[in-house]
Structures are given as structure tokens and as C-alpha cells.
């Protein structure tokens, strides 16, 4: 193999699995260390820089970081990254003075944002401080989009939403509630320099099977959750069936329990392991005694005397091959399950009845707009998309990232610059050596298991619909959980010229990830390392030829616990521990005049 090119920011970035896995590239290890030092406000601001809504995301993020976490490969449970984010939010001081502010004078450019959800709010957050006149048009009488209408209050209290959305609205953002946009064409006729569409994927999928329209007790999940959020719906029958096992289904079943349901069943077409819901959301629902029935495929609604009495399912059997792929299944029987209400939670679609098809915006065969994944601009210049409305349903953190990228594009577009020509990612590396065997971070491996999130008592929590179930980590729990972080951003950096091949690093490495051997191609090298290197998603870090024997140092990044012992046992300093700081460009960094602020994170 060729020596690893560590000058490409992607190389060390990818070692920080959580940050690489996060669409917004939140610097997770950095904020966890701040929490460890009790700097909650700093940790909050570090989060806010990339993910804008730490309090919200600390409760309801889809947490792509956690399945990516190296700790999950070294033992079984990842660091509770998401809930540590909430710790930063819960324990922060008043940070309003540290927030970006709108300048007194506008830059004369007007931007319209459609929908007051997370994507639009992120665009506002990035552009308002630069002097843009930002107007948000929202169809409902409140902000937050699906974060408010579809996520139940017992998971995300309105106070948290109001606070973090308020931070953005206070940047002189013009919010127009109860203002649905009926026609994009007429909005474009108004004098806006750019338009951003962040309207989500607002249409719940329907289930067109017999009996669907013969009862008013069959509900579309996201519409029903919205009605509950606005208190238009305050009760439900005793027996409720939820169709689908995604995260919306989990919200529907748990909401049902709080509206008077006593027997809630989640009906899954496929077996466990093929559910769409996140493992932790399944866990939380099952803790509330929700029953999940597998291999039930909906066939028809059973209506007797005009009343919904149950639902008929086909019982399925599946073959699963060695790779874990599941076939379409065969029907092995039928079963009727009695119920009073059915909630359909089988997915969402985009819907753009208000976008004319003759204004230069191309739509694909799923009736979604064609949007450039890098710039977020559609076929019509000056119109940008983000969040679920861009590429279909994803999650909040993706919407935030879309917002950041759209803000960069909008800025460049409004300034008459090429929107493709964006600032690249950068990377800083700085040694963390403090003394002979002393590092700037807590390098010892802490074998403590993941802390459990304390929950409100099972009886207590159903008394009202808005009792937040998760209590948040206590200070003691947070202190223990932060020590589980492996500090993957403190990189093992190797200088081949200095190596005398004494083997000390190989011998001390607790997870056998280092090998000095003769070079070869990757397939060959992976078989010759000191421990199996079977995870091909994780890179091999290969050095230049070593001076004494011409062999190479190979590090399998997969399971490195960043304990620094290789660097401590190295007599020549060939190994060093260096903090990598990913420099993520935002709209403010694109400002080209000399008074521009430095790159985000450049202070490290």
C-alpha cells in the first residue's frame, strides 16, 4: 500500500467515527471533554455551532453518531453521545450573550424561507447574523414544524423548542405565522433575492385496503399526532393497533397510552431486526408494555354495522439468507385482531401541490424536486431546498446540515459568486503532549458500562400527556459517562523517519492494532497483522518505509482506544498524540472581506 495521505482532512476525520457519522459533523469528543471539565456552556456552544439545536437534538436526535461510535465495537454499547448533548443543554448558563446577533444594518438582500422547521431555522441562523433580511412563512400558528407537531411532548417539551427557536428568531428574523404559501410562482414574483423551501414531508402514507374509508377510527399517524399536539384529539379507544414499526409508530403507540388506550399493539409485517424504528425507541415503547406483533401483514379493516371492530392480517413467513437479506415472504394464514382504533404509521411522502410545474423546477418520478446534493439548489436559480422536502424523509440532523449548506449557497448566490466554488474542509493537528507521560486529555481506558437514562416512574408518567419521560443524566452519571469516550479525535500520528523499530508500541498496544511488517497490497496486509483486521470500513494507516529495515508500520484504526501508550512507550517520538480539529466552513466563513471571522474551530 502507498503511505496514507494524512494531509487529506478526510483521513483523520474518518477516525472520529461519531463526527464522521454525524451529518452536521458535530465535534463530539471536544464537547464531551468540555462536559468532563464542567464547561457546560462551552459544550453547548460547541454543539450549537454545528447542530444549532442541542437541547432538542439531545432528546430526539436520530443519533447516527452512536451506532458509529468506536466504543460500540470495542465492547457492546456506544457512548451515550446524544444524552450527553442534553447534559450540556440542561446544565448550561445563560448563553444568550454568546449568540450571533443580526448587524444593525442589513446587507440589502432578502431571503424567504418557507416552513418554520429545523431546515429553515438553520438557514435563518446562518444568514441573519450576516445582515440578510430573512422572512419565514409558516402555515401553522406555531414554529418548529414536525419537531412540534409530530414529536410528542413527553419526549420533547415545548419549552425546549421555544427556547432554542427563540434564539434564532431573536436575530431579527421576520416570522409570518398562519401564512401558508399557496403558490411558489407568486412568491417568486415578490422581490426576494433567494427562496428556501423547508416544508418537510408532510403527507403520511395511506393504506389502500378494503374498509379503509368505512370508519372514522382509522388515522394517519403524523396527522393524528399533529391533532394531539394541538389538542384537537384528546382521547382514543381502549384497543389500538399501530400499523408500521418506524419511529413515528413508536410515538403513536406511546401517545395512545396517554390518551386512554389500555391495549396497544404495534403490527409489524417483518420480523425483528427488520424494523425501521431505532433500537432505543423500541426499547422505550416496550418499557411501557406496548406489544409488538411480528409477521402480520395488513389485509383489510373489519367493519361491523358501520363500526370498526378489528383488522384482518395475513400471517407471514420469511426466508432469510446468509447475508441477512429477507425475501418477500409467504402467507401461511390469516388472523383477525380486534380493535377500536387503527393508526397508520407506514411512512411519509413529500407533497408540493403549491409548486407550479412550469417555473423551471424539475420533478422526478416520485414527484420530488430534483435538487443538487451539494448546493441544495434546484433547477430554478435562486430556489433552494432542504430537510425532508429536498430528498424525502430523513431526520432533524440531516435537515440542519442541509440548512447550513443551503445558507452557504444562498450567500454565494446573493453575492453573485459561483455556488459550486465553496470553501473546502480543513484540518488542524496539534500535539497533546504535556510532559514525559502526560497528555492533555484523560487517556486511560475506563471500563465502566454505559449509564442508564433515568425515567419517570411507569405509573406517574401516564397521568398527563406532557410529562417528559427521560429525566436527563444526573451530574454523577454524566461524570461517569464522559469517561467512556475514547477521544478518537486525539489521533495517533506517526513519523516514519524517527522509528528505530524497537517494537515497543506494538508490544504495549492493548488491542494489538499495530504491526511492523513488509508492505503489500491491502488484501494481503490485512491477513498479516497482529490481530484480525476484518472491518474493511476502517482504514489501515500505513507509514512510509522505515529507515532501518524498509518495512512499514501499519495501524488498523478499527479498535484503537486512543490510550496514548504507543506514544508513551516510543523512545524517539515517532508516535505522537495530536488533536485533529475539523474545520467546517459555514456561511459566515465565506465572507470574503478582510474583517471576516476566522474559520470555525481555527482557534485550536
Amino acid at each position: 500500500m502507498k503511505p496514507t495521505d494524512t494531509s487529506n482532512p478526510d483521513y483523520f476525520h474518518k477516525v472520529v467515527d461519531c463526527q464522521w457519522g454525524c451529518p452536521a459533523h458535530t465535534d463530539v469528543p471536544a464537547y464531551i471533554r468540555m462536559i468532563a471539565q464542567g464547561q457546560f456552556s462551552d459544550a453547548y456552544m460547541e454543539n450549537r455551532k454545528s447542530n444549532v439545536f442541542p437541547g432538542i437534538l439531545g432528546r430526539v436526535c436520530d443519533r447516527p453518531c452512536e451506532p458509529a461510535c468506536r466504543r460500540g465495537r470495542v465492547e457492546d454499547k456506544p457512548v451515550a453521545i446524544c444524552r450527553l448533548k442534553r447534559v450540556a443543554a440542561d446544565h448550561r448558563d445563560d448563553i444568550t450573550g454568546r449568540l450571533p446577533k443580526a448587524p444593525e444594518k442589513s446587507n440589502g438582500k432578502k431571503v424567504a424561507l418557507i416552513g418554520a422547521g429545523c431546515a429553515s431555522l438553520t438557514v435563518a441562523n446562518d444568514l441573519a447574523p450576516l445582515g440578510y433580511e430573512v422572512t419565514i412563512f409558516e402555515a401553522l400558528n406555531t414554529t418548529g414544524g414536525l419537531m412540534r407537531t409530530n414529536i410528542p411532548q413527553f419526549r420533547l417539551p415545548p419549552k425546549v423548542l421555544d427556547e432554542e427557536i427563540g434564539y434564532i428568531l431573536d436575530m431579527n428574523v421576520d416570522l409570518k405565522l398562519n401564512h401558508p404559501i399557496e403558490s411558489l410562482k407568486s412568491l417568486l414574483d415578490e422581490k426576494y433575492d433567494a427562496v428556501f423551501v423547508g416544508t418537510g414531508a408532510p403527507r403520511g402514507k395511506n393504506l389502500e385496503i378494503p374498509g379503509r374509508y368505512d370508519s372514522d377510527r382509522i388515522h394517519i399517524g403524523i396527522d393524528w399526532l399533529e391533532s394531539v399536539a394541538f389538542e384537537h384529539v384528546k382521547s382514543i379507544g381502549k384497543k389500538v393497533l399501530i400499523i408500521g414499526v418506524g419511529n413515528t409508530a413508536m410515538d403513536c403507540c406511546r401517545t395512545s397510552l396517554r390518551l386512554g388506550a389500555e391495549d396497544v399493539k404495534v403490527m409489524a409485517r417483518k420480523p425483528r431486526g427488520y424494523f425501521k424504528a431505532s433500537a432505543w425507541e423500541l426499547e422505550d415503547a416496550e418499557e411501557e408494555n406496548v406489544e409488538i406483533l411480528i409477521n402480520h401483514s395488513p389485509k383489510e379493516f373489519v367493519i361491523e354495522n358501520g363500526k370498526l371492530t378489528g383488522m384482518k392480517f395475513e400471517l407471514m413467513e420469511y426466508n432469510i439468507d446468509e447475508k441477512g437479506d429477507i425475501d418477500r415472504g409467504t402467507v401461511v394464514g390469516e388472523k383477525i385482531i380486534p380493535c377500536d382504533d387503527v393508526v397508520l404509521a407506514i411512512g411519509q411522502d413529500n407533497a408540493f401541490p403549491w409548486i407550479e410545474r412550469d417555473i423551471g423546477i424539475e420533478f422526478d418520478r416520485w414527484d420530488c424536486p430534483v435538487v443538487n446534493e451539494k448546493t441544495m439548489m434546484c433547477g430554478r436559480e435562486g430556489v433552494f431546498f432542504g430537510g425532508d422536502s429536498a430528498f424525502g424523509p430523513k431526520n432533524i440532523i440531516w435537515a440542519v446540515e442541509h440548512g447550513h449548506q443551503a445558507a452557504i449557497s444562498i450567500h454565494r448566490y446573493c453575492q453573485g459568486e459561483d455556488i459550486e466554488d465553496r470553501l473546502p474542509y480543513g484540518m488542524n493537528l496539534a500535539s497533546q503532549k504535556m510532559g514525559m507521560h502526560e497528555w492533555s486529555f484523560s487517556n486511560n481506558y475506563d471500563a465502566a458500562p454505559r449509564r442508564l437514562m433515568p425515567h419517570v416512574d411507569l405509573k406517574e408518567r401516564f397521568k398527563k400527556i406532557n410529562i417528559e419521560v427521560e429525566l436527563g443524566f444526573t451530574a454523577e452519571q454524566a461524570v461517569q459517562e464522559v469517561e467512556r469516550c475514547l477521544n478518537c479525535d486525539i489521533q495517533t500520528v506517526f513519523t516514519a523517519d524517527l522509528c528505530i523499530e524497537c517494537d515497543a508500541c506494538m508490544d504495549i498496544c492493548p488491542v494489538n492494532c499495530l504491526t511492523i511488517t513488509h508492505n503489500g497490497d491491502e488484501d494481503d496486509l490485512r491477513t498479516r497483522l497482529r490481530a484480525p483486521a476484518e472491518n474493511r470500513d476502517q482504514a489501515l494507516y500505513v507509514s512510509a518505509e522505515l529507515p532501518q529495515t524498509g518495512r512499514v508500520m501499519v495501524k488498523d484504526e478499527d479498535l484503537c482506544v486512543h490510550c496514548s501508550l504507543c506514544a508513551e512507550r516510543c523512545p524517539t517520538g515517532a508516535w505522537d498524540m495530536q488533536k485533529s480539529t475539523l474545520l467546517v466552513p459555514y456561511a459566515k466563513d465565506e465572507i470574503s472581506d478582510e474583517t471576516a471571522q476566522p474559520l470555525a474551530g481555527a482557534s485550536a
Partner: protein
Amino acid sequence: MSYIGKPKVTHPGLPRNKLGLTSRDYEGTVSTLCAGCGHDSITAAIIQAVFELGIEPHMLAKMSGIGCSSKTPAYFVSQSHGFNSVHGRMPSVTTGANAANRNLMYIGVSGDGDSLSIGVGQFVHAIRRNLNMCYVIENNGVYGLTKGQFSASADIGSKPKKGEPNKQEPIDPVSTALSLGATYIARSFSGDKEQLVPLIKGALMHRGFALLDIVSPCVTFNDHEGSTKSYAHTRQFYHHVVDMDYVPPAEEIKAAYNEGEAMPIQLHDGSTIVLRKVADDYDLTNRAHAFKYLRDHFEKGEICTGLLYLDESRAEMHELMGNIDTPLSELPLDSLHPGSQELKKLQSRYR
């Protein structure tokens, strides 16, 4: 030394030996030697060898004297027996231990100071007795613990970090052992585990005195230019004479050898040492030939390594003394100690 211990976390795919243990189970405490010390690498090789052999930790005894080298038994197989003895006295303590319990496997770790200066008398007599042990000399040519003075193994002309080059003739443990009749003699280098691990395995399984002279650079006092025991010098003048593989009993010899290259030698326990000759003209069963070959190459400045001499035919200490197979430590007191009447009878035979 490091402030933290080696974390207990392990690679989940780590191989397990016949006892179900991983190499991590054969570790000791974290080394307090200088970072980069060759001794630590030898420690790692011993761990690997003992792990691969599947030795039960409680059947191993680690013996040492004084010196950097003699600290190292603390760094491997924590759950075995150990005796850290007086300077240079490891061979006699091991002799005593072995006399009492011949069932244990003995590994003595010594250095060029401990074995070739203060303990040279002990060293040579352990060889004469053909004591059944694996005797490791971690040879760095200097007294590291006392700040790097030349030891008895320093080569003529080798430069110290400060001061004058060495002028005295070195004691070579390999030719010394050869002249005294040791039955398993090998030399290797701490930086060459591929060669070293099989040599340690063979030495542990050999019946009789097995000497391993291992060049082990002192990274603090003897790893500079002009030193003949540095990493760079050793690599430059390193000369593989005979490499070997160790094949446990009842295991097929699987590795591929070129025809005429491999030569299997069976050990007493049924395991096999397969020699891979690198130098065609070397005969490791012929003492006189070996001596001459090593001397000739030494004069050319080469460091000959590998299994340099092997004799499986000679009796070890217990056999020479005609002892019973049961370890003395396991005999009941009345057979071990027949009483004062029996002693008087015995003494009267010599009057």
C-alpha cells in the same frame, strides 16, 4: 514508565490457545524500563511463546537476579511462580528450585552484567550440571541501571555515549556455553520476533540447559552511532545462520519448506524442531565446527543468529544424579526424611 497500566480492554478477535487463554492472559505488570528498551520486546516474545505453547501459568517459574533484565519477570505471566534473587545468584537458586520440583518449567532471565560479571561462576556451573531450564541473557553491552558503563560483553572498539571506546576482550556467552557443553544454544535479537519466538519455544521445551543470548539494545545508554549493540548496528551486521520452527507434539508439520532445506529434530516430549538452514555450510550438531564458524564470523564483525547448537542426547541434572521421577517436593515427609537412624547408617558407610 507510564502513569497508566495497560488497559484491560482487548481485541475481540484475539486468538486463544489450547487452554482457552489469550496472549493478554500471560501478561504481567506494565514495564518500568525505559521506553524502547529491547528487554520489553523480549518480554513480549516470551509472552507470545508461553501463550502459543499453552503453558499453564502455575507450571512456570520465573527466576532472576539483579539488573534491568532481572526486573523483567515482573512483566510477564503474573500468575506463575517467581524468585528475584541476589545479583548473579539466579542459577544456583534455580538449581535448588529445580532440584526440589522438577515438574515446573524454569525460565531464568539475566543480563550481561548479572551472568558474565558477578554471576559468571554461577552461570558456567549451571551449564556443567545441564540444569533443565531456559536461560535468557538480555545482552546490551552496558550496565544500564548504573548509567551505562561497559559490561563484560562489550565489543572491542565499541564507543560509549561519553568517554573512551572499550579495549577489553568481550565474553561471548554463546562460545562460552559451547565450550562448557550446553545442549541448546541460540542467539537472537530483540527486534526480530519472527526468529525469537520459536527459539524461546524450543528452549522451553528442550530437556537440559538452553541458552538464549539475545542482543537487546539499551535505548538510553547504548543505541548511538559507534555502539556495536545498537538497533541500527545489529540490523546491519545481523546474520541468520539457522532459523527454526517449533512444532508441538502430534501436530503435522504444515509449513512449506524447500527440498533439502528443512531438517526436523525431535525433542524428548515428542515435539519437533524444524531447522531451516540459511547458511549451507553450518552444522549445528558439531561443537568444533560451530565454534570455528562462529569465531570466523565474529572476527568479520558479523552477529550470527539462530539455533547455533543442539544436542538432545545428553542427560540433564536429575538424570545425571539418578533422581526419581516424582518431584522431591511431592514426596511424603517420611520418604524424603528417613530419620536420624538412617542417617547414622549412611554415615557409617563412609567411615
